[in-house]
């Protein structure tokens, strides 16, 4: 008899939700770009992880978070927090 597996909670896509439930990396990339920590060219330039890490550090320093350069939970929480739409870096 197969073991009964615990059911994972179902997460669905809600229609009309402007910010759909993105992956963490997608969220971070969007956030870092939107608020001026990451330039479009830096993403397409192929810097990959290194580029994101340095932008993350910049963001963490600016927002008073621990500078890990990692997409850790306090950083993700900060990215999901309600805030002003004016960029932090640049005009």
């Amino acid at each position, binding site marked *: 008899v197969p073991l009964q597996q615990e059911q994972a*909670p*179902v*997460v*669905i896509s*809600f*229609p*009309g*939700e*402007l*910010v759909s*439930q993105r992956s963490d990396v997608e969220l971070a990339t969007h956030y870092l770009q939107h*608020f001026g920590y990451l330039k479009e060219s830096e993403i397409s330039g192929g810097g990959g992880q290194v580029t994101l890490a340095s932008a993350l550090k910049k963001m963490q*320093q*600016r*927002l*008073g978070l621990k*500078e890990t350069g990692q997409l850790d939970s306090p950083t993700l929480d*900060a990215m*999901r*927090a*309600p*805030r*002003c*739409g*004016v960029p*932090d870096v640049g*005009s």
Partner: protein
Amino acid sequence: FQTFQGDLKWDHTDITYQVLNYSPDLDASIIEDAFQRAFKVWSDVTPLTFTRKERGKVDIEIRFGTEEHGDGYPFDGKDGLLAHAFPPGKDRFSGDAHFDDDESWTLGTGSVVKTYYGNANGALCHFPYIFEGKSYSTCTTDGRSDGLPWCATTASFDQDKTYGFCPSELLYTFDGNSDGAKCVFPFVFEGKSYDGCTTEGRTDGYRWCATTDNFDQDKKYGFCPTRDTAVFGGNSPGEECVFPFTFLRQTYSACTSEGRSDGKLWCATTSDYDTDKKWGFCPDKGYSLFLVAAHEFGHSLGLEHSSIQDALMYPMYRYVADFHLHSDDVAGIQFLYGSGTGPSPPTRRPDVPTRRPNVPTQRPDVPTQRPDVPTQTTTEADDTSTSGEDGSVTESTPVEPTSDACKVQGFDAVTQIKKELYLFKNGQYWKKPAAGMGPIKGPLRIQDTWPALPDVVDAAFQDKLTKKLFFFSGQRFWVYQGTRVLGPRSIEKLGISRDVPKIFGVLQKGRGKALLFHEDKYWRLDAKAERVDQGYPKRTDDVFSGVPLDSQNIFLYQGKYHFCRNPFCWRMTPQYQVDKVGYLKYDILECP
């Protein structure tokens, strides 16, 4: 704090504003009051005045909108981006402040429901309230046959009988062209009949209705106020939860977070989500329009985001019940506009320890201390001092004993030498124990202790490794080792270019190294070699982000970096986080 590139600011102080539209979430009078209070936050500490104009050209246009609302910077539905504003200028949107109307706008602690008619003179609903023995936390239509939602304005309707009617389209509309007339249902729009408010015919999601039975004919309309029980965001904002509803074949009789990974509560706005897919977020505490507006108006006046978490201009929203403008915000706005004649800025932060009352003015020759003031016992802390071989300071004569460090308007230089903080000004210096609440000693004559020095010392520090004392004045520097002195020599000898007119301050970096600052750049000095390291200068704000680049005093004190511009000091941890902005006099010197 930060200002926009080029220090954008208004060229006049009598700023005008106009409220172009209103949110359905709050009564217009509450919105106007929130904006007025938000402007007052800034006018209290500057010479700025703010006048609301109904028409004509104004400096700051305020509007609510959703998603793309005409400026190319779309909002993103509920939560996330709350608002934005443009810096001062002469462009189309300059100074304007926009608020995302997919948010639930409140005063930060849940629905603010103003009542109409009834017998409570427009008082706010009191939640919860008791009606016929049952507790209500929202407006209700119970007890009425006309479907009008109402609430009690005290804790118990049963006892006090005071009540009013809650915002609903059955009572009034706002904006539009009907002077607040209520909706007429059913009404006809483009040949179709409507029994409730609709978003049809609009791209901004606002719910509207006709105020006659035929819009096609009369063109009379208004916007529907948000009921306190309405949902936000989703695909049916402004509508109400329908309980019970079915979701993935389960029945729900209350808001749920099922189906979501973010834990937000939602409900269906029809009885069957699986079929109709209509939903929205359940009412929550909402965002304080006052706090968000005060932040946005900071942008409208020329402030960028601050990196101080407690500052109003920090980019994240945080509700605070007892709002006070942070000293960083005050410093920022006064940098642009100067100080005003309003109430004294800024209010002391809660994390600042309260000064003990009645600590007497420090005089170097006063032997008696209050019982709670630690008495100075070490030689180094005595009034008379000169430089010892190990860099300790002994023997000098007090001058002008009535001169009070707390009354000095900005110091030339500040530095910690061994266990004392030294403050230099015009040929004199004061010193204060770096630990505890000891009194300030001085003034003492600089030349009595260090005869080779000029009256004005711009910066000073003691190297921990060599015990050398470095003093800087203009483009010259002196090095004291005990009573031996070398100097004056040009700072060019250190490897600093000749176009640097002075050193503003110094931070010791471990043993044998120190950072010398001039405006937006700094050098690392090797104290033993008496040369700056290769690769310098570097840009100050690359590492020391969030401190003023025109700091007058830069020094290490109690293990933390301090960047001071009279009267404020930005304190930074060795991890380069600004953890406090306070006053040099009150927070560091502990002046009464």
